């Protein structure tokens, strides 16, 4: 018995020992809790985001981090559940992390905005900033906006406007298919609104909401889309809902064009394949070929280095913009203090690594940056996921062109001295 007890004590001791160096190391870093689906149907997206973030952080840290400290990402799996994201938030605030970062799922974002708002009100000494890297339902920086929430991706209404502008003149019949939750409903509403405004000749022949992440075979939907006589499918689907949908469409070989928000994410290129040459468009912040198109050698070399060590494309240019903004804001704030950093972020203007203007709007904490419409086709310099095809830029929309108004009325804290 005594032997056993000693053994247990030793085992516990070594466990503590194994953890403690990390804790000690963590004290002089700026910790960012990153919560996204790292298991479940959307794990592939969360995993790809994480790898790109780590690549970007290595780069930012090599350039000195902020205030002489390095940024450190602490991942928390939220299994696409708002409740798990709130647990991640709790752990982050318990450890006094100044940032929580989340990209995937506007329903989760809405829960986080509320959770952060409450926490910061009750605990003014340990506030936290919510950095939104891709939950884009329009209302999050409008009706639901918060001082502590900074969104670093353009929202659905902006993307819908880009898409409506990019729609060719000969397309007059479109079919809408979206995921049945906050974000998908936002796409449905905003795309219809902008089509009605900019392209009154376009008729919506079908409008569908599907359960999030549940459908394995989209063939029945493809049959329905074809029967409705649609020339183009507009969808905000992401993750498996995007890849399986597009795969079913391409496999069925029907004559359809795809206007998407997320076909360029991980797995998308593989799902489209060579048969989809020129058929799929995506509203995106970046593609590896864009650096080539604008002749930016530095950006090309930097993304190529990612490409050489990973099995998928680097598509998250916006993520680098996030950390360049954070780096600058933390330096400006002069302390790792959430309130000071938040004020420093407000209205901050920067050029991103491609040389375009970006601004974190003060009144709604929504970034406005350049955005691209990409087409997936043959004959580009960098192909995607070894398919031989890749994304070429069809249109570049600058920040000024999508600077839509907002209805945000946020409650601001007192400016710290």
């Amino acid at each position, binding site marked *: 018995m005594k032997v056993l007890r000693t053994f247990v004590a030793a085992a516990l001791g070594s466990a503590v020992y194994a953890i403690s160096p990390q804790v000690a190391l963590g004290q002089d870093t700026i910790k960012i809790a990153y919560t996204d689906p790292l298991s479940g149907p959307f794990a592939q997206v969360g995993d790809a985001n994480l790898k790109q973030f780590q690549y970007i952080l290595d780069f930012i840290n090599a350039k000195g981090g902020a205030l002489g400290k390095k940024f450190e990402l602490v991942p928390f799996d939220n299994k696409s559940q708002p409740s798990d994201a709130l647990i991640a938030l709790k752990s982050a605030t318990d450890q006094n992390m100044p940032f929580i970062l989340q990209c995937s799922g506007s329903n989760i974002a809405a829960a986080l905005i509320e959770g952060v708002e409450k926490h910061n009100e009750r605990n003014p000494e340990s506030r936290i900033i919510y950095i939104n890297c891709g939950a884009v339902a329009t209302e999050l920086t409008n009706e639901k906006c918060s001082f502590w929430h900074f969104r670093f991706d353009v929202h659905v209404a902006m993307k819908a406007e880009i898409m409506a502008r990019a729609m060719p003149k000969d397309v007059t019949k479109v079919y809408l298919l979206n995921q049945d939750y906050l974000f998908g409903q936002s796409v449905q509403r905003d795309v219809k609104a902008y089509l009605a405004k900019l392209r009154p000749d376009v008729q919506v022949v079908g409008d569908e909401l599907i359960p999030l992440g549940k459908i394995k075979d989209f063939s*029945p939907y493809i*049959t329905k889309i074809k*029967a409705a006589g649609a020339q183009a499918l507009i969808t905000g689907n992401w993750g498996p809902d995007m890849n399986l949908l597009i795969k079913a469409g391409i496999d*069925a070989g029907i004559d359809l064009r795809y206007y998407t928000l997320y076909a360029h994410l991980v797995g998308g290129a593989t799902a489209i394949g060579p048969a989809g040459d020129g058929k799929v468009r995506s509203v995106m912040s970046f593609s590896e070929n864009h650096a080539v198109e604008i002749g930016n050698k530095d950006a090309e070399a930097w993304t190529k280095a990612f490409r050489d060590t990973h099995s998928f494309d680097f598509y998250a240019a916006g993520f680098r913009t996030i950390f360049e903004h954070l780096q600058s804001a933390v330096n400006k704030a002069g302390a790792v203090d959430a309130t000071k950093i938040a004020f420093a972020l407000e209205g901050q203007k920067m050029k991103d690594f491609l040389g375009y203007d970006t601004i974190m709007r003060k009144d709604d904490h929504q970034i406005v940056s350049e955005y691209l419409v990409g087409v997936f086709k043959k004959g580009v310099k960098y192909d995607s996921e070894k398919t031989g095809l890749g994304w070429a830029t069809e249109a570049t929309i600058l920040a000024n062109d999508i600077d839509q108004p907002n209805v945000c009325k946020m409650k601001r804290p007192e400016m710290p001295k």
Partner: protein
Amino acid sequence: MEVFLVSLLNGLVYGMLLFMLASGLTLIFSMMGVLNFAHASAYMLGAYFAYTISLFIGFWLALIIAPLICGLIGAAIEMWGLRRVHKNGHIAELLFTFGLALIIEKVVQMTWGLIAVPYRVPALLDFPLFTLYGTNFPAYRAFMLAISALMFGAIWLALTRTRIGLIVQASLTYPEMVSALGHNVPRVFTLVFAGGTALAGLAGVIGGNYHTTEPSMAFTMGPIVFVVVVFGGLGSLIGCFIASLFMGLIQTFAVVFDYSLADLLRQFGLTVTSSTPFAEVLTVPLPRIGALLPYVLLVLILLVRPRGLLGTRDT
């Protein structure tokens, strides 16, 4: 007509895949009286084994080897696990298989990772077989149909035309009697369990690349397979077959019919407006509740006909 034919084909493919999974489960369930929660896990293992094997020696050998491995695992589970737990009654067995399902999922996550593996349709079958009203029918789906039809034929022949099949069939309905006649019922159990698991593995091999191979695939497929088994009825392979096709077709056709209860009421001269009670429920279109329909049917059949469609004895 176009929508009908294409949907019919899609529904058939899905229904036959369900049947491959459910047929093994229905045999196990009927004989042992235990809903094997780990059955869909064998489906997942089949897909992962096939993926790994196909990396080395190709899809065609994986098609044979992966189900065999699943069958062996099934036999081991029955001989060294279930048989010991059996003494403690059905609840213990149920919990045992439930625990097993969770363990298998974790093991799969640890071995192959959390994200989907790139398990693809073999190049030889990656072409459109024919075109129906401008919609391609992929050859791989025809292959799935063929495999599952072959399997149905093989099980049916084995059960009705061979001696071992006769004993299995007898054990399905009168296990105690068969035992009393001096047959080694435990060995029959092992055989059926291994066979059922191998069939689930086979379904995984051909279903894993048709859908996606990821750690949650067992838990998404599990409930619907139970519905098929209960709906089809205990101890009836034909009932299971009909139920599988029915569920496959119902889920496929639910997607294409944009009707709601309000449309049905309109046929009787009742118009639903926003002030009608339950207006929100009545106007929900069928595609949005398609995934729910099998469970509605499950509840209904348990209320009306607890032994299932062609069941020979009560659950």
